[in-house]
């Protein structure tokens, strides 16, 4: 079996996940991790798929992509079955919307050893006073303390909360 990563992007409409996965299932593909997101009215999904090495995934998905107007991108999956990477820190950031929040926060935290595993941002609030909200999870490769120190250096118009994720194993 061969592992591939599929990325599908297009305008969101109901039934995309069902249509895509049905075609894959019919051709003997096995799904592993998948993550779908809706950004604005845009649909996106990434799927890790295991399939017969002879299977031409692009050909398999041609029709469904055409019908649903999706862009398809296929990569070979280098990760095979890697053990899950467990985040040990969660960061939430919010403030009056302005440009540069993500870049500032993430570069300071990256320098302090944060490896981001999951990130989501959104804009809320009123049209006159939009607010920016970002949540992240990651691995603090140098421990939490350097991250705590790092956020002290950031502009004070941004609120940042840093919480340890203490995974329970039982």
């Amino acid at each position: 079996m061969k592992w591939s990563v599929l990325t599908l992007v297009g305008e969101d409409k109901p039934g995309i996940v069902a249509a895509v996965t049905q075609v894959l299932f019919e051709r003997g593909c096995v799904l592993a991790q998948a993550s779908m997101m809706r950004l604005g009215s845009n649909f996106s999904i990434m799927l890790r798929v295991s399939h017969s090495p002879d299977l031409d995934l692009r050909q398999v998905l041609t029709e469904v992509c055409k019908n649903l107007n999706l862009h398809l991108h296929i990569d070979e999956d280098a990760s095979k079955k890697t053990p899950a990477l467990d985040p040990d820190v969660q960061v939430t950031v919010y403030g009056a919307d302005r440009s540069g929040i993500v870049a500032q926060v993430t570069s300071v935290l990256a320098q302090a050893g944060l490896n981001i595993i999951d990130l989501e941002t959104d804009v809320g609030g009123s049209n006159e006073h939009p607010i920016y909200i970002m949540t992240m999870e990651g691995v603090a490769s140098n421990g939490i303390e350097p991250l705590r120190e790092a956020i002290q250096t950031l502009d004070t118009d941004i609120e940042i909360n840093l919480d340890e994720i203490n995974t329970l194993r039982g």
Partner: protein
Amino acid sequence: MEILTYPDQRLKQISETVTEIDKQILAFIHELEQTRQAGPGAVGIAAPQVDVFKQIVIVDVSKMKKPVDNHGHMIMINPEITEWDGMNMGREGCLSVPDFTGNVIRAEKIKVKYTDETGNKHEIESSGFEARAIQHEIDHLDGLLFLDRLVSRRSDLFKRKTYKKQ
């Protein structure tokens, strides 16, 4: 002892009350503790995880890298949660569900009654991480895994709730 891993359906079985703490039970508790310690960083274990369907769990969060409030090493026979208060979301994994962790909402504070291995009855108040561990282990006695209580990794604490499967 060997740990049952899901999808083994035995993990969904409901455990029976322990009526007498005899030599056999004590020997079993010893083995259960050995198994817990052999597990990677396990702060708790429940009897059904090793194919014994009796209401026995062990919880010990006293050796965490970052210390948390705790009641030390507890062997809990016929444990019963009598009060719940508050809730919070935390990440959980399980010896019976290798290589996966997920977010679960649990009561922040609980009152729990149990009998220890010497037959003494206790009623304790537990909160935070220890309360989470106790709830996770007692779920096993009811045939529930943390998978039954998963909430989306992207969801906020109060956006959704999970309920016990009927």
